[in-house]
């Protein structure tokens, strides 16, 4: 019993990080239908931004460090959109995908060259002390940092949801997703809305990166695998949907962790992806995605 709870807790922490990346994927996809393959690498850069800040300003507490890393990464996201994507917005979708892949490879190798190829860890600014009352209640190991990661991630997601569904800016974002050509006719600056979307998505990824760098580790190539995982999570949940990205992330993390725990760690990928394919066969447009209706 304790192991089940422990495993679910492990899954929650992993899922929270997946979700922070998947949200950026989903948002960017939502507004410009781009599978931003560079997003995993933006996450990586976010982590390294956190690392460099933590090394440079050893006095800086987490609540200052994280927003700063998010801000820097948001700027990077906006710059990438401006330089590499904007010109291709009207071109066929796939040329954008290839450009995004190129941007990703570029970022990986740039960081490798600039910061070094070593695996790094952000000196933890989170309390790693056990949460005594919870540990007693559940009988498993629970540390504050784990809870912090899960709750801050959830809070960021809730904030994002509120922005998208409760503000005019969010309405504009959803409108861009529906029909970006008409949006300027509403007096809305399309470029700005898209830039803001990239900024928010990148900032969330950076938050994920900073957490990841403390809870796990950082290396210049880590964005590839995590990016793919987050992409898969976003699609499973229904790409373009915020709730879907979160749900998909926790689901993917859950399936991964539980497969390892109760089925086979050897066949983790095989079983996890087999289950996910099965899921898509039952819900062909993801769990919360809009069904691809035959519109006539």
């Amino acid at each position, binding site marked *: 019993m304790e192991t089940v709870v422990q495993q679910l807790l492990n899954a929650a922490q992993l899922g929270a990080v997946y979700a922070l990346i998947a949200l950026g994927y989903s948002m960017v996809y939502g507004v410009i239908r781009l599978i931003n393959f560079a997003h995993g690498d933006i996450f990586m850069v976010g982590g390294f931004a956190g690392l460099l800040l933590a090394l440079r300003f050893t006095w800086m507490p987490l609540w200052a460090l994280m927003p700063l890393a998010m801000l820097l990464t948001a700027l990077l996201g906006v710059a990438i959109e401006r330089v590499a994507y904007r010109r291709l917005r009207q071109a066929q979708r796939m040329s954008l995908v*290839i450009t995004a892949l190129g941007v990703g490879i570029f970022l990986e190798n740039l960081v490798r060259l600039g910061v070094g190829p070593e695996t790094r860890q952000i000196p933890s600014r989170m309390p790693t002390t056990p949460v005594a009352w919870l540990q007693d209640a559940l009988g498993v190991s629970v540390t504050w940092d784990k809870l912090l990661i899960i709750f801050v991630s959830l809070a960021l997601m809730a904030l994002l949801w509120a922005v998208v569904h409760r503000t005019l800016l969010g309405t504009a974002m959803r409108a861009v997703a529906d029909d970006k050509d008409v949006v300027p006719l509403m007096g809305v600056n399309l470029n700005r809305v898209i830039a803001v979307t990239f900024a928010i998505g990148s900032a969330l990824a950076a938050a994920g990166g900073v957490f990841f760098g403390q809870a796990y580790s950082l290396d210049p190539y880590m964005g590839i695998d995590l990016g793919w995982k987050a992409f*898969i999570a976003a699609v499973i949940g229904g790409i373009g949907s915020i709730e879907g990205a979160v749900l998909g992330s926790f689901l993917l993390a859950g399936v991964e962790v539980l497969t390892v725990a109760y089925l086979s760690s050897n066949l983790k990928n095989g079983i996890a992806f*087999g289950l*996910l394919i099965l899921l898509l*066969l039952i819900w062909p447009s993801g769990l919360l995605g809009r069904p691809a209706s035959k519109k006539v």
Partner: protein
Amino acid sequence: MLAPPPSPRAPGPWALRGLVLGTLALAVALQLMTEAGILPEVLNPYYLHLLTVVGMNIILVASLNLLNGYLGEFALGHAGFMGVGAYAAALLAARVLPPPSSLPPFLGPLLLLLPTLAAAMAAAAAAGYLVGRATFKTVGDYLSIITLGFNMIIVNVIQNIDAVGGPRGFTGIPRNTGFAAVAACTLLTLAVLRALVQSSYGRVWLSIRENPLAAEVMGVDVNRAKLQAFTIAAAFAGLAGGLWAQYQQFITPRSFDYIKTTEILVMLYLGGMASLSGSILGVVAYTLMMELLRNLLGAFAPQLAEWRMILSPLILILVMLTRPSGLMGHREWRWLRPRGRS
């Protein structure tokens, strides 16, 4: 105002005899030249190696073009099909068939090549058929995930089969291919794919890309057409895998993961979708770019060898920004265009 329509002509005969015989003759000639040690003298084996790799990549890219260019899907599992083919061929060549040394020198590799490549194509086609079936209900990015997931499953399963070396890789595969065989296979693949995309089947695939619902009300069984495309594309990916295994003599499961898939994708879109010429050009341009960078950096700034991986994506981005539809766009070179057209 309009130019008079070109006189309608039936499609010309595929030079079945001509092409097959010509290709075989070329292959035999190349093989003889290799055996006699002439080819390596004429052409630096390094270039010969690059050409061989280019050939195998053309097979991969052109067959993926069937799915991503003509059928209009975004399939992300091509390296998985390649892996299935590679392992099937490797198993047959290394474990079942006699070693090439026990066979006559010139004919031996050829005798071994035919069954191994056939097995590679059949195994990959079966995998493609399965994946094709699994994609019936989904479209777009959800379909991509199914293909990607399959790719990951394949790699993971191979990693768990100790009989084929698991993660340590499959060693001891005899070298049954070389430039000659790869060149012949590449030409035949292009000929077959060209024949297909210019037939009624090719038009059906394109129509599904353009408007699946309209295709359906024209009487097209979309699922069946998808299934055919997946099976054929996978078969050729398997062919490339079979060649690869018997050329490199060593394969590991991770050579066939999504990193390889993305490399194939990059070459495909660099060249241009729904264009066989683009597939050829994309592979050549990409290979040339990577090797030129390697050689230029090596010659002028050996200490900057790592910069290759920074410069190459930059070049890629620049190319895509200036040629958003890839190098070829949707156009075809003359010799690949259908006949009977202006």
